């Protein structure tokens, strides 16, 4: 067993994790045999996961809901080769749940899913050949780079196994935190405090010889608070998350890069902020570009939307054009920003799944090792995140960024821990150097232009800066800018890099919701501000 730690004897059953032992033996020969015996099948791969999760939520100091779930899922991809090297792809996703407890039923589900995926891949090859003949289609010959042959086993990291935490224990944590928030008084109109624990074990096997087992533990706390005063109201929500056990929620996590408070302290801090904001005036934005100093939490959303998503190669290659748009960094294979300046020389950004963060992993869901990818190097755009297929199109090396939110989904190109890298300035000095400007703290809601060449991102708090000193606090403010201009005008980058947990990044059709980390240091640039809309 890769999932270490001994489940409590009274916890929910955990035999579902044993299905991985069976599949370690059975999947590889099944996939190989399938490819050998099915004409046209070029390769096959299986993604399997067993997941235990426990969830609790309390509202206004009383329990609202609690549940434990244990399930298993299977994702199968089959590639078929057609005329001229065209690859047709078919996929089947199944939530098999308790069927995974029975080896015969699991084998049958695997075989059936392989057949379904093969039929779909074959149909694609056939139809593509017909269409190519009719219209002389060109350029549909992207061959994925050779499949992974990696073999590895990676354990989850936790102090307390999520399976050993009882329902009442998790609910008590939420209820106590929620009661503490409610006790702040009448100006807390509503609060919801939720906690999730998860243990996930994944197995990737393909017909080329790869077999990778990875386990993950997640602990997440989500807080939502509505505060109101005579002068206004404020809703805020935020998340803490660590790839750790229950201890991350009860004791917090001390770490230079992504520290987090315990759930109760975090909820209380958020509620205090909501109360303060409900009494603060709405920002009346100046009608001109102003100096803005942005804090690490706000920059997490900027890097997510303006660097991370546009650096996904599937988006750059227009595969997401109908959903979440294209990338401002790429027009064609010949016309793009690779090697060109897109920001100030102080600006660096990267994605790195190898460091501890909510988006940490060792291998992606195509079996490629994850590695640090530098997106922006001293203001110059360098590299995209990719999958094996998109790497082939871009004539790049795969960098291990194809990830699915669940095994039944198709892997998409995804961020991991994506952040603006640290500079050398003291954050206090960055503020003190400003004669007149605004300090923008905490991210709230983004709105992005189609290729992310422009954004309006709202902040939780905006402070005036007058002669280097923080002044009045405002709410309902946002930063509005064209992306490249905002990056070019950056004139200070702090040494206070922090990551935050992002629990809900949506992408694809159907929507896949993925966990990751984003962040950055304190930064200074120029932008317009937005306020409330009259």
């Amino acid at each position, binding site marked *: 067993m890769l999932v270490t730690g001994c489940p409590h004897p009274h916890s929910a059953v955990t035999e579902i994790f044993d299905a991985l032992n069976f599949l370690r033996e059975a999947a590889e020969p099944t996939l190989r045999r399938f490819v050998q015996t099915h004409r046209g099948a070029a390769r096959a791969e299986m993604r399997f996961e067993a997941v235990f999760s426990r969830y609790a939520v309390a*509202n206004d100091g*009383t*329990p*609202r*809901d609690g*549940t*434990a*779930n244990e399930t298993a899922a299977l994702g199968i991809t089959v590639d078929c080769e057609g005329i001229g090297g*065209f690859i047709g*792809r*078919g*996929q089947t*996703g*199944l*939530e098999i749940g*308790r069927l995974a407890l029975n080896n015969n039923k699991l084998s049958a589900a695997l075989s059936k899913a392989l057949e379904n995926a093969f039929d779909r891949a074959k*149909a*694609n090859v056939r*139809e*593509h050949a017909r269409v190519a003949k*009719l219209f002389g289609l060109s*350029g*549909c*010959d*992207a061959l994925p780079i050779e499949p992974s042959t990696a073999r590895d086993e990676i354990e989850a990291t936790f102090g307390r196994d999520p399976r050993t935490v009882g329902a*009442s224990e998790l*609910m008590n944590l939420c209820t106590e935190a929620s009661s503490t928030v409610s006790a702040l008084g009448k100006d807390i109109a*509503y609060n*919801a405090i939720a906690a999730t624990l998860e243990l996930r074990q994944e197995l990737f096997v393909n017909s080329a010889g790869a077999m990778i087992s990875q386990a993950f533990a997640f602990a997440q706390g989500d807080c939502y608070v509505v505060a109101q005063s005579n002068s206004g109201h404020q*809703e805020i929500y935020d998340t803490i998350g660590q790839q750790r056990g229950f201890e991350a929620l009860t004791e917090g996590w001390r770490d230079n890069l992504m520290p987090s408070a315990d759930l109760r302290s975090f909820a209380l801090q958020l509620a205090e902020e909501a109360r303060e904001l409900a009494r603060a005036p709405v920002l009346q934005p100046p009608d001109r570009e102003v100096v803005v100093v942005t804090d690490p939490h706000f920059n997490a959303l900027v890097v997510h939307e303006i660097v991370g998503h546009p650096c996904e190669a599937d988006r750059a290659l227009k*595969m*997401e054009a*109908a*959903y979440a*748009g294209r990338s*401002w960094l790429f*027009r*064609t294979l010949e*016309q*793009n920003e690779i090697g*060109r300046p897109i920001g100030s020389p102080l600006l660096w950004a990267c994605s790195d799944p190898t460091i501890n963060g909510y988006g940490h992993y060792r291998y992606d869901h195509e079996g490629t090792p994850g590695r640090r990818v530098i997106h922006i190097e001293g203001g110059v755009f360098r590299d995209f995140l990719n999958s094996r297929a998109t790497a082939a*199109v871009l004539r790049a090396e795969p960098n291990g960024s194809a990830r699915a939110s669940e095994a039944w989904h198709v892997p998409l190109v995804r961020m991991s821990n994506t952040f603006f890298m640290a500079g050398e300035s003291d954050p206090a000095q960055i503020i003190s150097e400003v004669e007149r400007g605004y300090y923008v703290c905490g991210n*709230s*809601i983004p*709105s*992005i*232009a*189609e290729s992310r*060449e*422009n954004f*309006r991102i709202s902040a939780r708090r905006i402070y005036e800066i007058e002669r280097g000193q923080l002044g009045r606090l405002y709410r*309902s403010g946002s930063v509005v800018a064209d*992306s*490249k201009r905002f990056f070019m005008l950056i004139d200070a980058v702090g040494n206070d890099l922090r990551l935050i947990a992002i629990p809900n990044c949506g992408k694809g*059709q*159907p*929507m896949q*919701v993925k966990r990751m980390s984003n962040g950055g240091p304190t930064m200074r640039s120029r932008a317009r501000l937005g306020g*409330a*809309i009259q």
Partner: protein
Amino acid sequence: MMRTVNELKKFVREAQRILAREEQLAAYELYCSSSEHKVVRFNYTSDIPSRGIEEFKSLEADGFALRIVTKRDRHEIGHASIAGELGSAALHEALSRARLALMVDPHFPGFPSIPPSVEELGSARPNSDLFISSEGVLAASAWEIVCSAVKEFKQQAPLKLAHPGFVLGGDLSLIRERVAITNSTSGAILVDEGAHFVSGVTILIEAFEAKGTATAIGGSRADLQEAAASLGRDAVRRALELRHGERPDGGQYSVVLGPQPVAEILNYIALPSLTTAAFQTSSSVYQGRFGSEVMDPRITLCDDPHASESPLIRHLTCEGLPSRKTELIRDGRLVGLLSSFYDSNRLMNDEERDKKLGPGFQHFGSEFPPYSAYRLGEGAARRFDALPRATPTNVVMSTRGGVDDEDLLAAVGDGLYIGRVWYTYPINGQRAGDVTCTVSGDSYLIRCGKFTAPLAPNCLRLNANIDQVFRNPLAISSKSQPAVIWGSPELYFVPAIAVKGLSLAPIGIAEAMGRG
């Protein structure tokens, strides 16, 4: 393979027998579902290697959820769900897990009493031949959409460019679902099933800075074939019409918002505020305004799970109650809210109810019947492991005194027609009602009440408040048209609305996007 209705009923019947023997249980609810979402994703790019159909994929899930209440305390409830297996062993496992998850929720109101007449819904009535269509039909339809688009572009493009930057994206999705539900209040086993497809095609012609879209929804194989024949072609024609669009300055404009932008603003701002939970949690944009006029008196808005114009029909809620039309806004006045059984009771028993709803509640009093509780997963199909939550099905906006297209444009005079927006969010929180989004395609300049030139996609950002859009429109179209929102399970049938004084800010051209 999806489970049949009879398989679901058989399991629920067996489960009833087992649960009846559990002496410590005061009440229970069993919800069972089998769902399937097949997706064929289009990806054809003229200048970048692509597969035409990126992949044909499916998600299948079946299982059940059990909620139990103990005799020890009528507010002590436990909840568990099981995937994959329907049988007595799985039920015993669920029972054991639900006991381990017991908690006391002082606001738990019990399970709804199912009216006896609903039992008549218990017979399985396949409502769509999409249930028996083969995968081949879906694949052939998807390839027809790709073929017709490429063919249309090759025939109609005014210039034969070596690198036109022609991009075809989108998907064809087929959603099928079956559910069975019972609870201990009546013992009836109720079933429901449905199948529909949704397809959206986006065409970009980057050399012409053009973008056009086409969408189809339907509930039968004939609808699917009709959509396959026209979608790709229509989207290309629209994109070609919109080539070389203008980039107007920012400022205040009179604007016709087409059905898609109206649906986006409803989806992201209005509908989340029109639930009992939003009022109970003090996060509705209409907080304290129940019974008041919140939209123009010409507007009526409802959620109708039986809408005749929609392929998405639901007979039963996921709490076992008959689904019904819920009138939300009548002649501009807020008169109803979407709700689940839990949320209705929670709001009605809230000691601050009158303050949260506002003075109009007493006059327009309602008990907020729970006609809208659904358990939905990714891809909009019903899922056993989701909790019932107030969710619309078919959002229908109708108009008194609506006008035709010509009069709608005339009402604006000089201004803009915005046919498609993107990334619409409540920028200052739900309750503030402020919305921002960018104009992403299908849009025109209006001069003297006529379309005079297309707008370049992504050249303007709209900043507005929901009240600006719906309180004092210049004119409203008399016809409601279907609109689909990416990632949202419900369908919209809404009119275009002419609005004055909307603020639009210019968006700079990114270098990589603008070159070439």
